[in-house]
């Protein structure tokens, strides 16, 4: 009983104290797929922004105000994302929302944020989120078309002009294949073979044999986020086929390299610089930020920092920058985000404008290759 009464007192006290604290807080919402099939995105994202909010609050907050982070777990479902978005906008009246994690969810809530004039900083990659530009919607990950262009530029340097394309049948794979087919002719690349495989495919030796039989193929591009990325590499090398293998930025997970073993050696793919943070030159503008994020995250959560957590990192620091520069409410924060120039983040250097709500360019991707089982920056041979 006594303990119970103590609890009541503490509760009453904290309730009484709450309004005083509330006056000094800034409510920031987040809709992330912390659980469910997209948990590999939302998990690192929510841990990252919690870590960053703690850091800001311990340092005395931003402009003297504490950040109150309200994270909603959408489980990757667009329906839930919509209802959480309404809740955050109408009931909590947050100044801005970070997320959602996936492109489908982001597109589902885009209109809501536009109508309610609340800034949204999406952590999803699809180009359609910011193209056409919607006044209050931003996104932090690099666009697929940048990855495609970087790959084709590398091919041009290597003198490759005829390629085979393999893609998984997920949204990511399909969007990538469309981009590859759309951009190839403009860069003098011809796609001579194209195949789509099931996301659960676990042996691709037959299709590799088919592509290998076409003597025109000078290189292979594989676009997926599934284990087949490692399997393509294994099957190609087992078949004794040694043309260069390019992968999408979806390959940026060291586990796929471990799974492909020696077959992963020499794979070339575009990636954000987080993967090669420790191998960047010391004067690179992203170097310090990347190594600090990696060390903090890995020290705190005992798991490897991923580019996905990085997208939430970028959304958070962009928002903080906008508030620091004078953003106090939804409208002024939006205006301040558009004014941000040359802000280093994990994905690249962000420079927004009224027509560019992603703020990144081709330079945000680094071409990376696998050497002795580790990621290293790709250098022209």
């Amino acid at each position, binding site marked *: 009983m006594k303990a119970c009464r103590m609890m009541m007192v503490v509760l009453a006290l904290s309730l009484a104290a709450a309004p005083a604290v509330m006056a000094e807080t800034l409510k920031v919402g987040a809709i992330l797929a912390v659980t469910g099939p997209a*948990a*590999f995105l939302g998990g690192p994202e929510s841990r990252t922004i919690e870590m960053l909010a703690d850091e800001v609050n311990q340092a005395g907050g931003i402009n003297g105000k504490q950040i109150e982070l309200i994270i909603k777990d959408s489980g990757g479902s667009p329906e839930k994302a919509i209802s959480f978005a309404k809740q955050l906008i109408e009931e909590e009246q947050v100044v801005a929302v970070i997320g959602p994690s996936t492109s489908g969810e982001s597109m589902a809530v885009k209109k809501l944020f536009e109508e309610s004039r609340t800034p949204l900083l999406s952590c999803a990659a699809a180009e359609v989120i910011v193209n056409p530009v919607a006044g209050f919607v931003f996104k932090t990950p690099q666009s697929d078309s940048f990855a495609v262009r970087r790959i084709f530029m590398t091919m041009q340097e290597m003198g490759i002009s005829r390629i085979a394309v393999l893609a998984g*049948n997920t949204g990511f794979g399909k969007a990538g294949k469309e981009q590859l087919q759309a951009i190839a002719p403009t860069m003098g690349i011809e796609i001579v073979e194209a*195949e*789509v*495989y*099931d996301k*659960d*495919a*676990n*042996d*691709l*030796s*037959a*299709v590799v*044999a*088919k592509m290998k*039989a076409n003597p025109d193929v000078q290189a292979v591009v594989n676009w997926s986020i599934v*284990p087949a990325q*490692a*399997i393509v*590499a*294994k099957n190609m*090398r*087992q*078949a*004794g086929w040694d043309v260069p293998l390019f992968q999408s930025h979806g390959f940026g997970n060291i*586990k796929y390299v471990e*799974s*492909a*073993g*020696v*077959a992963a050696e020499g794979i070339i793919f575009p990636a954000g610089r987080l993967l090669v943070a420790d191998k960047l030159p010391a004067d690179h503008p992203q170097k310090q930020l990347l190594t600090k994020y990696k060390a903090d995250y890995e020290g705190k959560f005992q798991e490897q920092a991923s580019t996905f957590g990085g997208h939430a990192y970028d959304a958070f620091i962009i928002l903080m920058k906008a508030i620091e520069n004078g953003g106090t409410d939804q409208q002024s924060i939006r205006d301040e985000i558009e004014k941000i120039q040359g802000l280093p983040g994990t994905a690249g250097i962000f420079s927004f404008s009224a027509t560019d709500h992603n703020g990144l360019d081709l330079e945000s991707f680094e071409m990376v290759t696998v050497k002795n089982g580790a990621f290293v920056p790709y250098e022209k041979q």
Partner: protein
Amino acid sequence: MTLELFIQYFFAGITYGSIYAIVAIGFNIIYNTTGIINFAQGEFVMLGGMISISLLPIMPLPLAIAAAVALTMLYGALLEICFIRWLDNPGVLRMVIITIGLSILTREAALHVWDESIRSLPYFVGNEISTVNVLGARVSPQVFWVIGACGLMVAFLSIFFQGTSVGRQMRACAANRKAAVLCGINTRDMVTFSFVLSAGIGALAGCVMSPITSTAYDNGTGLAIKGFTVAILGGLGNSAAAVAAGLLLGIIEAFSVSVLPLAFQDAIAIAILLIILFVRPHGLFGSGTAAGLKEF
């Protein structure tokens, strides 16, 4: 088509085919003693791969595989004893629903134990890029391990069912359960034993295929569908037919790549399953009269 390409497709086909055949044999063993399809069969394959991968850091590869097979057999026994053994005269539908439930349960438990990442055993011989040259085509040595293990299991099972007392008792159960009881055979033990046996061969298949296909917590479902197709295609209950049907399906899938887009590969298996169910429900090698006498 060049000879080289033909052989390349052929080996790809018998690699998938052997794996499908082993899953189908697992279905058949349990079908023969209980008259039901155990839809958790694919999960045994996944467990075999996962357990051996987890044990590998603390013991050599052959021991890790042996331990994984033993633990999966134990798991098979536990499933049967906890969920099926105590049912009095269960209906087919009820048993099928139970095994589907067990499959989901196993998969979710595996997700919690191993998370969603993809793992694989190292290649038994050589590494990811070593190959054997067969008439100009290049084949991974692991393919021969898969085919060899599959062949050995089929040989072992046929000796077991023909030549040993336990094997004969299991077949008696399958032929006529009531008569088997009258002869003093403990049919409940035989059912448990059939779960142990099919868990064991599934786990071994899971280990030998892991270097080629990788193992993830949700591998089992896809394999169960293919294995089920093959079991039906060959004729339920007939293990030699399952091998033939498995190789047939694998080879059809591999060669289909040369004429159809790769994305249709899985649709082929399902299309074959549907055609067989409509045209020849007792399977390519089964007898229609015998199938007519069975409940399911």
